[in-house]
């Protein structure tokens, strides 16, 4: 059995993280000592590693909770998990697409600035941002 400190060290997270996961219902100690200290077994180690790995794949804690529920459900099967993974990938791809658009917008702004020695009042990047804000405001009023 591991104390919370040893568990955290083993999985390379902080004790606050372990407590937070417990609060979120993702993890529970195997038992508590008479003095009320939490004790964890190998199941907790595996669960924490699972949580960390799922976070690396972009899953939120709420989504990880769903995955863990699927994992322990008798009625669920591999294709249920696969469809969760596919939806996550779709969301990530949407985000990547949005980030590309933002990056492209920045590239265009950077290209506009052809003379870095100009005073701030003549900064074409700031001017372009202001004019696009005005356009947006006009659009909002008209729309």
């Amino acid at each position: 059995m591991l104390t919370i400190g040893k568990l955290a060290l083993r999985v390379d997270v902080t004790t606050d993280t372990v407590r937070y996961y417990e609060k979120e219902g993702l993890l529970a100690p195997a038992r508590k000592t008479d003095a009320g200290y939490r004790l964890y077994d190998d199941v907790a180690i595996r669960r924490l590693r699972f949580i960390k790995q799922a976070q690396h794949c972009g899953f939120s804690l709420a989504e990880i909770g769903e995955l863990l529920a699927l994992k322990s459900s008798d009625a669920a099967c591999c294709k249920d998990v696969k469809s969760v993974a596919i939806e996550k990938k779709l969301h990530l791809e949407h985000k990547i697409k949005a980030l590309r658009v933002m990056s492209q917008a920045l590239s265009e702004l950077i290209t506009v600035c052809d003379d870095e020695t100009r005073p701030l009042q003549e900064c074409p990047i700031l001017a372009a941002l202001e004019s696009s804000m005005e356009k947006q405001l006009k659009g909002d009023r008209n729309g």
Partner: protein
Amino acid sequence: MVKVEVFSSPGCGKCAQAKNMLKTIVEEMGQGRITWRDVNILEEMDYAVELGVMSSPAIAIDGKLAFSSLPSPDKLRTELGKRLV
């Protein structure tokens, strides 16, 4: 020609039966005026993202996302009906 595209992943059990029913409706209503394409979302992820598909299964009609989950037969009939007028 109305183009119906159904986005799902291979082996999606919940889709197969419902999809077959919807396909029958398309064939009945379309009579050569509607095309049906099964899109493997894993093979055409970029296209799915382009159309705004956020979950699977989903249906696009004429290149626009029409249903973010499989619709009831009536809803699909209504949607197709609007386009066949």
